[in-house]
């Protein structure tokens, strides 16, 4: 009985699918965010979708749905297995998080489960220390770690997320062993550990670190990206400081749909969504919130996903 019903509804859906693509979207669209309300991803997702209801964008509002848990695994698992592939359920992706998790295993998704639409932001990981820390450059950190192997504690928001990737890359590039302390409760908890002096340093989001530095609580020692950030022109990259760390840990945020979404819908979204991100109101709000933007179209994101998949597979192979 259950199978019959499910079969019938699938048949019905595919019948209506082709016709619906023309008028898509004819009702509000949902976007799943795999992190809690108030987090950086949630906050940015709300800003970049706020103009979705405009006539030159989708013409329908996008509602944010939070499905937090286990570093994003809960939301993406739900999205890969249970979301309707009709274009009315979108999700925010965080690269490298979901790719690293799928390589590590134990989840029901991989890059093949999703179709990227567009990228809106790139938030590099940075290395922070408390404002009163004796460390003033990455060299100081590496020297300390060399003298005290395994004793340099530094926090980050969990395992197999951007922060962890950056941590692994730093350790590998410097050839040292440090103690990465994953926290529960995201970047905010990791930042608190740094400010309170529970750990000697930490990897955190550039946007959050920028705010914490404005508040006078931390020093930012290095950016794990290929170039310096516009927000922090005075902070050198890891490469400049002699650490071979590329942009594999940069937290790319964007929109995707489940595999199996009608091609017409994907095309329509791929054409409108990047334009929606470029709206000037969105840009000014994002800048005010300290969130670096990087708009990429569908093809660029596909290439970026493929490249990350390769890098991360190599990096995580030893774990």
């Amino acid at each position, binding site marked *: 009985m259950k199978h019959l019903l499910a079969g019938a509804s699938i048949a019905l859906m595919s019948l209506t699918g082709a016709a619906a693509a023309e008028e898509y979207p004819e009702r509000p669209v949902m976007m799943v965010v795999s992190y*809690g*309300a108030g987090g950086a991803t949630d906050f940015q997702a709300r800003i970049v979708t706020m103009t979705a209801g405009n006539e030159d964008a989708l013409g329908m509002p996008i509602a944010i749905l939070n499905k937090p*848990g286990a570093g994003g695994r*809960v939301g993406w698992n739900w999205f890969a297995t249970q979301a309707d592939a009709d274009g009315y359920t979108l999700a925010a992706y965080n690269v490298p998080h979901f790719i690293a998790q799928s390589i590590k295993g134990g989840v029901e998704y991989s890059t093949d489960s999703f179709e990227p639409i567009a990228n809106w932001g790139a938030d590099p990981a940075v290395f922070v220390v408390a404002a009163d820390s004796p460390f003033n450059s990455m060299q100081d950190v590496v020297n300390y770690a060399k003298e005290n192997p395994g004793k340099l504690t530094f926090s980050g928001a969990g395992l197999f997320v951007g922060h962890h990737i950056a941590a692994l890359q730093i350790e590998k590039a410097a050839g040292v062993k440090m103690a990465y*302390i994953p926290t529960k409760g995201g970047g905010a908890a990791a930042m608190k550990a740094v*400010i309170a002096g529970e750990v000697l340093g930490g990897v955190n989001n550039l946007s959050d670190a920028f705010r914490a530095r404005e508040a006078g609580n931390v020093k930012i020692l290095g950016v794990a990206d290929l170039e310096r950030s516009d927000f922090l022109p005075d902070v050198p990259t890891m490469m400049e400081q002699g650490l071979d760390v590329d942009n594999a840990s940069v937290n790319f945020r964007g929109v995707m749909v489940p595999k199996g979404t009608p091609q017409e819908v994907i095309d329509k979204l791929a054409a409108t969504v990047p334009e929606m991100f470029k709206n000037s109101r969105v840009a000014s709000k994002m800048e005010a919130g300290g969130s670096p933007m990087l708009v990429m179209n569908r093809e660029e994101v596909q290439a970026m996903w493929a490249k990350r998949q390769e890098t991360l597979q190599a990096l995580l192979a030893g774990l």
Partner: protein
Amino acid sequence: MEFIYYFGDVFSPLSFMLLLGGTIGGLILGATPGLSPTMAVALLIPFTFQLEATQGLILLGAAYTSTVAGGAVSAILLKIPGAPANIATTLDGHTMAKQGHGAKALQLSFLSSAVGGIFGVLLLIFLTPVLADWALAFGPSHLFWMAILGVTVIGSLDSASVVKGLLSGCIGLWLSTIGFDDIMGAQRFIFHPSLGGGINIIAALIGLFAIPQVLTMFAKGRNSGAAEVIAVQKHSVLDALRELIRRPRALTIGTVTGSVIGLIPGVGGQIAGLVAYDQSKKFSSESEKFGKGHSEGVIAAESANNAMVGPSLVPLLTLSIPGSPTAAVLLGGLLIHGIFPGSDLFDNHPEVAWTFINSMLIGQILMCLFGLYIAGLAARVAQVPQSVMAAVVLALSVFGAYSVQSSMGDVYVMACLGIMMFFFERYGFSAAPLVLGLILGPIAEANFIQGSMIANATDGMTTYFLGGALNKLLITIVLASIAYSAWMELRQRRSQTPADKTEVRT
């Protein structure tokens, strides 16, 4: 004293309207079984897009304050806490309502909420810099001991049998480990796909408290003669005020405990009410009356859970670190207007910061006034026929559980836990310790694991978890709490005649 300059802004027509709207709306949302403060605030965020930063924050601040207090209404009248913070209120509050003192319980709860709430906001105004250092002093090892302190409350909480109370707590602790483990990412006890995200605390709370009430109403059947109508005696506000003044101990313990616990990031207000309830029970000269409709129980629990509101914002406003889920949502509300909490907020946008804080102060008073008015209407709520009430609560539970994170899985978990709880309650298991276990489990575990990772990299487990003044202080409190509970238990057993022992509490 800077805050006084900005009082005028709160009373500008639009701001005051928003404050009024936020307070009344918050009270109603809070009183609705199944809507927690965090959710109410999160759901209100989109409204603030259209407003200016100050006005948006006034709305959010007012809603935060009054949803916490509003949760007491359903806790007292229906034994369904609106949020984890109101669990302790059900213990004495609902018993009072059953005895016909619903109006009195509500009046007491709003008055003590206002006292606690105003104290908390004043702390926020005057002691923010000092408190910020305090909030940071709590590292993983201290938070671990705080959670253990919470666990010591479990055994003595609302259960006729200590062993069954502890067992209920253990069930809660176990339920909290279901799902993906946040730090390692391992899957634990996921025997059904709905459990992948773990058991959501709000969904569980709705299920464990609301569904047994629905079934209890069903159990009375169609026979109107058997259905007991809860009478609500009229009670004057002045009498309630006098009662409050006669109980300074409960009020003080509640307010202080709430403020201190609210301050600690990560523990949040969820356990403030329960710890305050337990403490005032231990210090009370009439401790045997607790749980049987004693006004001190309501006063302690409600003053604590509103006192925590102000201090819980200290880490957010000064350090830009959200100390509770609700604070995290508020952070989003600030950032969307381009305001960074921290010194930037007080230096460059003092009008936003102080108007927000002032609005919470005025909000407490408005909340109290409207709350007292609602208390007067309590008699009407109690007259709603059981059949209507059962259907209303069931529907609200389903909608409430679903809207936490738009997940059907949460609704299933809510219903299953609720139905189980109804039957287990008939055999001496109880919901309050179970929920407490569910709340404390993740706090204890995450901090233990994090602490032991830091300890292993630095000075070793013993020094890290047992060294330091704060650790020692907390351990002393934990030991004292256990010893006192054990002593009370022994004394009670000795004084009881065998006939009393078999006495049944429902």
